[in-house]
Every structure is written in structure tokens, then in C-alpha cells.
């Protein structure tokens, strides 16, 4: 095992991680960046360096903007180690990872920038082949230029769903329907945040453009849909839902589901440091100071893994974290001027967020399934009904559901059922999710082969 020591270890090559590495290098820190993918850019700028021009054109200018950050990163002098999976991080800055073999690096500080993942969409039939995340389909478009072979149905809510629809229209894909679950109450919830949305008018107008393009396209849009379910035996055959009080059934072989993104907190949770329940974004987030530092540890978090803020704000958070780290390590004496500039930028880039959170808050029935036969833990195939029965037997929290029925003990290690299990138990007990807590996440947080430890 190698034991490199460096000023800063950055985990994640998305906007937050890349920007943090650039800023830290500019301040004279030595930086190692680890990332699970073999190309830089994270999910939002996935394949940014290799995507051909026509694909960049289809994906739009917000995607193409990632090229500038990627180029800055390549010039930064960061020790970049792609294709590596971090499986352990300690509060004093030791990082273990695999990438062909296992290795250890120690950072005087470590920045975790593990980004976001799509919020689970636990409905009947969501485990069937042909049901996948809209974000997943967008990754296929960015990474491989892959498009749906036949008419595709997009279902759910949130900016990414409309963005993908817009990209598919530009690419000439056939969209069978968009089934929108944004409820009328969403507009009422969002109203108090309208001023913020207007202050973030650039983001707002981009969103309105996407929706207008979708309307012009003539694609059938079912607004205010609810009670989504997927039918099929060996694969998806149809999407069913309620629209204006009536049941609708749409035949489809590919249904792309999306109801927002949530922080990918597996890494920060595994450190045992404090997290809290964000009731606006309905997810866990690490407790940090304003720079992203977790308590008095060597660990910082920036970007969507600290709470959903979007790509541009993530990059700014990464730079702010790097400033604080440079100050902490004595590499930069006066950070005040740069920090003021970046904080102003961050404010501009997050104005719209409370509005989006309120408008696109996913329906309760699509987060906490009322049907007992809906699979919640996809790996170990545990249903909502089973989890409810555990609660009736006295199960108080997610860790106990493991003992009751292996829920959360499969290969995804609770990443895809954690939020649902917490909310189901909270509902059953009649308490706040904060009180129920999350699975205790322990290293190794990625599968490691015994052979990885042998040369």
C-alpha cells in the first residue's frame, strides 16, 4: 500500500471537486483528486472532454460550459487519479481506495464532493427492466450518444425531466408522453419563494424556455398526474396513473422516472459525523460550517453532496471550501476579498433553489408508498408492507429493519432505499424523520475484492 501525503485530497471530479482542485492549486496546495469514473466532469459534465460537437449542441450550452472548467482543471497541476473507488475516509484525512489494487492517501484536509443521485421513485413495477431514471438516460446520451429506440415516456417532476425532454426533442427522439406529477399545491407552496426565483431570473427563464419548447412540440403532457404504477411481467409494458380523476394507461417499453435529485451522502455518513434531515429537500445532509467543514475534522463537503444547489453553485462552494482549507493549512493569509466575491456569486446562483424545492416537492405517495406490494429495498426485495409490519412489531429505525428482513443489506448498501425506509418508519411511528435517523453506514462503502489487497 502506498501512503502518499498531500495537502488536499478531493473526492469527486464533478463541478465542486474540479473547481476546488483548481482553486487549491492556485493557492499553492498540493492536490490529489480521486474519482470513480474514468473521465472527468461528474454526472452533469459527463464525457465533457470527449463528447463530439453535435452531441454537445444537443445537450445545450449549460453542458458545454463544463469544457472551460475541465480545461482549467487540466492546467491546474492536480494529481488526477480516475477510475478509483474510495471505500474509506477517516475524520483525520486518511483515504483508502481501489483502482486495480488498493491504496491509501492522506490529506491534511479532504474535500468530499460526491454529488447527487436521483431520488428513489418507489412505485409498483419500478424494478422491471425498462424502468430507469431520467438522469440515467441522460447519462447514456452524454456518455454514449444513446437514444431511446422507440417512443419513450417521461414521468415525474423536476428540472432534469424537462431538460431531458428538451434534449430528446433536439436529438429527434420520439417522446410518447410526459406525465408530470407537479401538483397544484406546488404552485401555492412555491409562491412565497417567487421573489427569490425572480432574483434568479436567468435560471427561471431557462426553465420556462424548456417548458415552452415542450408545449410547442405537441408531445402529450399529462399535468398533475398521480398514483403512478408500472405494469409488466419480464419488462415494462405500460405506465398507469390518475389524471383529472380518471385512470390512464399508456403502453410503453421504456419509462424514465424522475422526481428530483438528493445528496449522495454515503461517504459523509460513513464518517459517523453529524447529519440532519432537510425537511425542504426531504433528504439527509452533512452538518458543516459555512465553508463546508464538518465539525473540527479534516473533512469538508462541497456541492450537491452537501445539499442540492446545482452545478454552478457547486463549483463556487468547491472554491470557497478550498479557500478555507488554504487558510486552515496556513497557505493563504488573507482570503477575505476572494471569499466576498465568491459568496456573492454563490448567492446569485442559489436564489432560485427554494422556489424549485417547493414547486417540485415530490408527492408523498411517490416517496412513501401507500401500496404494501411496492418494493422499497430493490436489492433484498423488501416491500413497503413488510417495513410497516416491522414498525408494528416495534422496529424503531432503519438499522433494525436490517435485522427484521435484511432491508438495506444488499450491494447498494442502502443508497436506494435509505430515504424511503426512514420516511416509512417516521410515518408509521408518527415522528419526524430526524428522530428516526438513517442507516449506520460503514466502510467499505464500495465492494472491495480480497484480491485487491494482494499484489
Amino acid at each position, binding site marked *: 500500500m502506498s501512503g502518499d501525503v498531500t495537502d488536499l485530497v478531493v473526492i469527486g471530479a464533478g463541478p465542486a471537486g474540479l473547481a476546488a482542485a483548481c482553486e487549491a492549486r492556485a493557492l499553492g496546495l498540493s492536490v490529489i483528486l480521486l474519482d*470513480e*469514473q*474514468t473521465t472527468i466532469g461528474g*454526472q452533469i459534465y459527463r464525457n465533457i472532454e*470527449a463528447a*463530439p460537437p453535435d452531441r454537445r449542441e444537443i445537450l445545450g450550452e449549460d453542458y458545454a460550459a463544463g469544457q472551460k472548467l475541465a480545461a482549467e482543471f487540466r492546467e491546474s497541476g492536480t494529481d488526477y487519479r480516475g477510475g478509483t*473507488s474510495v471505500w474509506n475516509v477517516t475524520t483525520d484525512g486518511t483515504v483508502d481506495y481501489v483502482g486495480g489494487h488498493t491504496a491509501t492517501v492522506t490529506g491534511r484536509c479532504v474535500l468530499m464532493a460526491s454529488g447527487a*443521485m*436521483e431520488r428513489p421513485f418507489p412505485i409498483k413495477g419500478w*424494478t*422491471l*427492466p*425498462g*424502468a*430507469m*431514471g431520467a*438522469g*440515467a*438516460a441522460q*447519462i*447514456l446520451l452524454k*456518455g*454514449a*450518444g*444513446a*437514444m*431511446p*429506440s*422507440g417512443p419513450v415516456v417521461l414521468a415525474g417532476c423536476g428540472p432534469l425531466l424537462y431538460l431531458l425532454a428538451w434534449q430528446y426533442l433536439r436529438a429527434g427522439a420520439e417522446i410518447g408522453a410526459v406525465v408530470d406529477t407537479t401538483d397544484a399545491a406546488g404552485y401555492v407552496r412555491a409562491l412565497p419563494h417567487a421573489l427569490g426565483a425572480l432574483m434568479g431570473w436567468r435560471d427561471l427563464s431557462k426553465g420556462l424556455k424548456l417548458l415552452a419548447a415542450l408545449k410547442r412540440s405537441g408531445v402529450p403532457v399529462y399535468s398533475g398526474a398521480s398514483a403512478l404504477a408500472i405494469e409488466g411481467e*419480464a*419488462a415494462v409494458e405500460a405506465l398507469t396513473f390518475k389524471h383529472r380523476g380518471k385512470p390512464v394507461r399508456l403502453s410503453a*417499453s*421504456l419509462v424514465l422516472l424522475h422526481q428530483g435529485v438528493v445528496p*449522495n451522502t*454515503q461517504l459523509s455518513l460513513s464518517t459517523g459525523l453529524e447529519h440532519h434531515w432537510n425537511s425542504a429537500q426531504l433528504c439527509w445532509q452533512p452538518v458543516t460550517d459555512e465553508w463546508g467543514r464538518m465539525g473540527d475534522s479534516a473533512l469538508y463537503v462541497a456541492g450537491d453532496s452537501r445539499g442540492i444547489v446545482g452545478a454552478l453553485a457547486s463549483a463556487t462552494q468547491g472554491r470557497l471550501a478550498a479557500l478555507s482549507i488554504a487558510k486552515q493549512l496556513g497557505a493563504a493569509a488573507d482570503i477575505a476579498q476572494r471569499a466576498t466575491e465568491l459568496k456573492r456569486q454563490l448567492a446569485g446562483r442559489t436564489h432560485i433553489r427554494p422556489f424549485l424545492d417547493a414547486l417540485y416537492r415530490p408527492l408523498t405517495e411517490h416517496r412513501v408508498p401507500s401500496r404494501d406490494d411496492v418494493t422499497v429495498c*430493490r*436489492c*433484498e*426485495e423488501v416491500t413497503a408492507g413488510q417495513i410497516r409490519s416491522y414498525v408494528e412489531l416495534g422496529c424503531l429505525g432503519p438499522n433494525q429493519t436490517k435485522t427484521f428482513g435484511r432491508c438495506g443489506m*444488499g*450491494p*447498494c448498501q442502502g*443508497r*436506494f432505499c435509505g430515504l424511503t425506509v426512514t420516511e416509512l418508519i417516521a410515518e408509521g411511528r408518527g415522528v419526524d424523520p430526524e428522530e428516526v435517523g438513517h442507516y449506520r453506514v460503514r466502510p467499505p462503502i464500495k*465492494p472491495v*475484492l480480497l*484480491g*485487491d489487497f494482494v499484489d
Partner: protein
Amino acid sequence: MATDTFFSIPKSTAARTVTITFEGEPLSVPAGISVAAALLAGGVKNFRSSVVGGRPRAPYCMMGVCFECLVEIDGIPARQSCLIPVREGMAIRRQIGAVELQFGAGEKA
């Protein structure tokens, strides 16, 4: 149009291809893409069978968090096919149920 694949990758004359096999059947796929993308565009709908019910599963997240895309690659079981780029000659098999402990199994990929 009845479709036998979920996704298609439009042919590009410039693109380099590699040949991989799934369950012994050869597939010619663009170089540089993930194994999961290659299999989806190659018409594979059943990547693995679930460990309890033995039900067919396919990729859900494409970014390494859902573990639905697990397949056997070059003799090593339960690899995340969405994270691994295709390589010439790669032999891929369906992941059936849970991984069994194999003593003295082959070299890792």
C-alpha cells in the same frame, strides 16, 4: 415500431468499435462507452436475476449507486457494468442471483 432494444446508438462512421461477448454472443460496440451502455444498445434487457425472487433486472441509475447493472466480466462476478468501459475481447455473462464464494477463482479484471 416494435422495438427490441431500450436504447440505440446511431452509427457514426468515424467511431472506432470493439467486440465484446454477452453470454457468448459477439457484439460490436463503440469504443469508450460503458459496458452497461453497450449491453443496453445491444438489446440486452435482462442483466441479472434478483437474489430473492430471481426476477430480471437492468440498470436503473447508470452512475454506480443502484447496483442493478451487476454482471460477470471476464470471470469476476458482480461487476458494476455502468462504471467499467468496454474493452476488446471482454467476456460478459449475466449475474445469476447472489455471488457465491469461489475459492481459487480466476485473476481479477
